């Protein structure tokens, strides 16, 4: 044991005394002396003989929920002789904030995961360079929110209310068909939502109610929801796994603000094969909010050429078809097939709410007023 301690002591002293290992550049290769264990994916590119020397490194900054298949990313790496490094930087808000803070010396070449509620913030901060990808023409206009193509849409998801099928059938209760229904006495104490100040689905659902009832009408609606026993928690993890009846947490509320695809995910990630998803989602007009996620090339990148290629790759069919079951979102490219599990167990939103034009100037005051009405 002493020996181990001594070994660690020496290693740590070395690390302290020489802050600068041989590898240079912003994305220095992992120092092998650190004895850390990188994931096997790091090793893969060396197995492929690169067509022209060392692979270049593309750094993609993203939020914690980003996911993709090894094979798909490898396909891009192989054909372009590139190693893609992903840097995860917290949830969507935190990640964007970090990208804005570092815009003078960007730590990445591109950023994926700014959504439509934060988009204008990102554009105003000027963190993105325009790139008119050849694939942008094939994407429906409803997703293209930046006409200068600084931020390009990649995927969308609907924030909708999920419900536990068993609870509703057992109690002979009809599934609510509108926001109005939720304030009826038969649904008392049945809904859990997220705080819009700390959670992105929480903000999305608040925006859906603002679109429906206007400002300040939404506040009266929320007061009625409060009187009807709505439960507010800090974030999605708590709402879904602690409070929601239809998850493994088996909590007390049979309805939760989540995503339209969560019932499909419940089906896919079941330990024992199921005949049907235990949950469903409400998709009635005006009850959902559509989140669109964007990718952009960070201003000042030295790898603009590969960054462009990766943007194209993200918009193309292979990545678009890989994305749904990794991140539980819908592809924006109409050529990409939506997996069967989505069509069987999730209902896409009908006439979902979208981002209001004055969101950026109103966001804080809406949340503050909501806070006063619901939490005090």
């Amino acid at each position, binding site marked *: 044991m002493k020996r181990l301690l001594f070994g660690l002591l020496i*290693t*740590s002293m070395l690390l302290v005394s020489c*802050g*600068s290992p041989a590898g*240079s*550049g912003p994305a*220095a290769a*992992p*120092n092998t002396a650190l004895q*850390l*264990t*990188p*994931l096997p*994916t*790091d090793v893969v590119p060396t197995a492929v003989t690169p067509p022209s020397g060392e692979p270049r490194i593309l750094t993609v900054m993203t939020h*914690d*929920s980003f*996911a*993709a298949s*090894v*094979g798909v990313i490898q396909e891009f790496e192989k054909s372009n002789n590139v190693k893609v490094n*992903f*840097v*995860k930087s*917290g*949830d969507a*808000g935190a990640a*964007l*904030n*970090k990208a804005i*803070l*570092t815009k003078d*010396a*960007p730590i990445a070449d591109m950023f994926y995961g700014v959504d439509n509620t*934060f988009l204008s913030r990102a554009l105003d901060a000027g963190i993105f360079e325009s790139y008119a990808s050849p694939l942008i023409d094939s994407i429906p206009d409803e997703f293209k929110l930046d006409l200068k193509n600084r931020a390009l849409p990649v995927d969308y998801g609907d924030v909708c209310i999920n419900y*536990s099928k*068993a*609870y509703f059938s057992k109690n002979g209760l009809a599934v609510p068909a509108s926001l109005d229904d939720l304030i009826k006495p038969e649904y008392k104490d049945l809904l859990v939502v997220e*705080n819009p*100040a*700390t959670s992105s689905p929480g903000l999305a659902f608040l925006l859906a109610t603002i679109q429906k009832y206007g400002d300040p009408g939404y506040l009266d609606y929320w007061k009625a929801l409060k009187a009807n026993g709505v439960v*507010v*928690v800090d974030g999605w*993890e708590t709402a879904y*796994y*602690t409070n929601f*009846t*239809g*998850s*493994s*947490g*088996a909590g*007390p509320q049979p309805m939760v603000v989540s995503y339209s695809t*969560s019932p499909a*995910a419940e089906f896919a*990630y*079941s*330990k024992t094969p*199921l005949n049907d998803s235990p949950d469903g989602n409400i998709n009635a007009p005006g009850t959902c909010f559509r989140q669109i996620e964007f990718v952009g090339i960070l201003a000042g990148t030295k790898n603009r050429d590969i960054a462009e290629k990766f943007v194209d790759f993200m918009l193309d069919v292979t990545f678009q078809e890989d994305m749904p079951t990794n991140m539980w979102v819908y592809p924006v490219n109409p050529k990409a097939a939506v997996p069967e599990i989505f069509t069987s167990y999730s209902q896409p939103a009908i006439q979902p709410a979208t981002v209001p034009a004055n969101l950026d100037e109103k966001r804080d005051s809406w949340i503050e007023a909501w806070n006063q009405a619901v*939490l005090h």
Partner: protein
Amino acid sequence: MPIVNFRKVLPWLAPSIFLSLFFFYPLTRILALGLDFSFFQKSPHFLSQTLEILRFTFYEAALSTLLTLVVGLPLAHLFAHYDFPGKKVLRVLTAVPFMLPTVVVAAGFNALLGPRGWINLGWMAFFQLDRAPLVFIGTLSAILIAHVFYNSTIVIRLVGNAWASMDPHLGDAALSMGASPRQVLMGITLPLLRPSIFAASLLVFLFDFTSYGVILLLGGPRFATIEVEIYIQALQMLNLPAASLLSLVQLICTLGFSAIYARYIVRVTAAIKPRAASLNQTRPRLKGQKLYVTGMIIFLVIFFVLPLLALPLRSVSQLEANRADLSQVKQTVTFDYYRELFVNRNDSLFYVPPFQAARNSLFYASITVILSLLLGFPAAAALARPGKLEKWLDPLLMLPLGASSVTLGLGYILTFNRPLFFSQFTFLTSPMLVPLAHTTIALPFVIRSLQAALAQIPSQLREAASVLGAPRWKIWLYVDWPIISRAVISAGAFAFTISLGEFGAASLLTRPDYPTLPTAIYRFLSQPGGLNYGQAMAMATILMLVCGLGILLIESFRLPGSGDF
């Protein structure tokens, strides 16, 4: 400041360079960028809101600290004075909560006290109720109980160590001269324990004061501390000026508490000849003692073990299909979630193999232990006999504990995103930044634990050795070291747990290619589905095991020359 000679500055060299580079510099940079006092005019409500939040933060922190002392002191006494079967394991178990991610602790409490928890379900079945009678989640009590659950270990270890090596002859002498046990407690025991009680209270208070996960998850959105508000302003509203102002308020408060502590601690410290801890420990013999020890063990099990037990239980229990109807689901035991941890189901790029996550976590934790001990030791030694310089530096050392981790994290991003000074090395992209950041948090802990122990060594012991002709290093080796080695072990265990449990998302960048156990837990919990939930619980159980075994190993170290203290 007066000119200080080199000898006095020397012990401070390494810790101050370290803290300047990895704490003060990034903090100054982010505050300089964000601070904007014209902000007051722009939002008139800011001041009154901040005062309200500040009031609640003080209130919950003071109340939590008090309760932690009420729970921790008897337990410190128990561990210091009695020998009983299972003592080692129970002592380790009290430290495990300290590093568990809040999501996981919340799940544990929920399994026990939630609307569908065991207690409520049992109560409902017994009294034929159709609604859960006990409301726990979302109350101030939940916040307080979670704080006590998290932080009791600080009191148990800091005060317990001092108590264990206190010479019982003083009390015995007083008793034989007719003092009542109460007089002994108030007149001898407590005064002698004051330095350690104060150090523990300060640490606990600062942890509660900057509390964030517990408030959000267990208290719910009706409660906000300064740190919660900083998080909302900085990362959700993207309002840096507000976040910076709040961070400054929090820093000033921390500095205030630490300054008061530093002034007071010198006056209450009395150095008394210590005694080997093992000599003070007995097996409970009298009937009263047995009753006391048994009672305390039962309390320990209920308060610490049951919420922890909920996780391993959930990680092996299967719960499927008809989830609305819990009463009819047969819960069967399964190890599938553990098996599933080793499978990369849909070929995910961010799949985390459990062994690698455990190895990375352990590696970061070891570096943190070694670095914080190396840096903390000289500083603690100097602080134990404070001169003018130390009185100035002392409050500053506690700042890393009171600084907002969100603000500091943004400061790191802003500072280390480019090569530092003349080197070519960018810290931000290096995995080494993680243990360095952990060390800034662990350092105040290590310094406080060691300082409390060092201050108790009577100077006569050193003087006697010196008169007899022992050189400085020999005095240190044969006088100081044996007495403080126990505190060194404790300090190391704290640094270890701090590093193991820290989840970098709020403060740093997560590097998916160097996953740790907490990041793996969060990865599972961020997606819906029974398998994800089960695997998160399985991973949390592994984290608990790794942490428990790590502490057990550290605490069973016999440092050379440590004797029995």
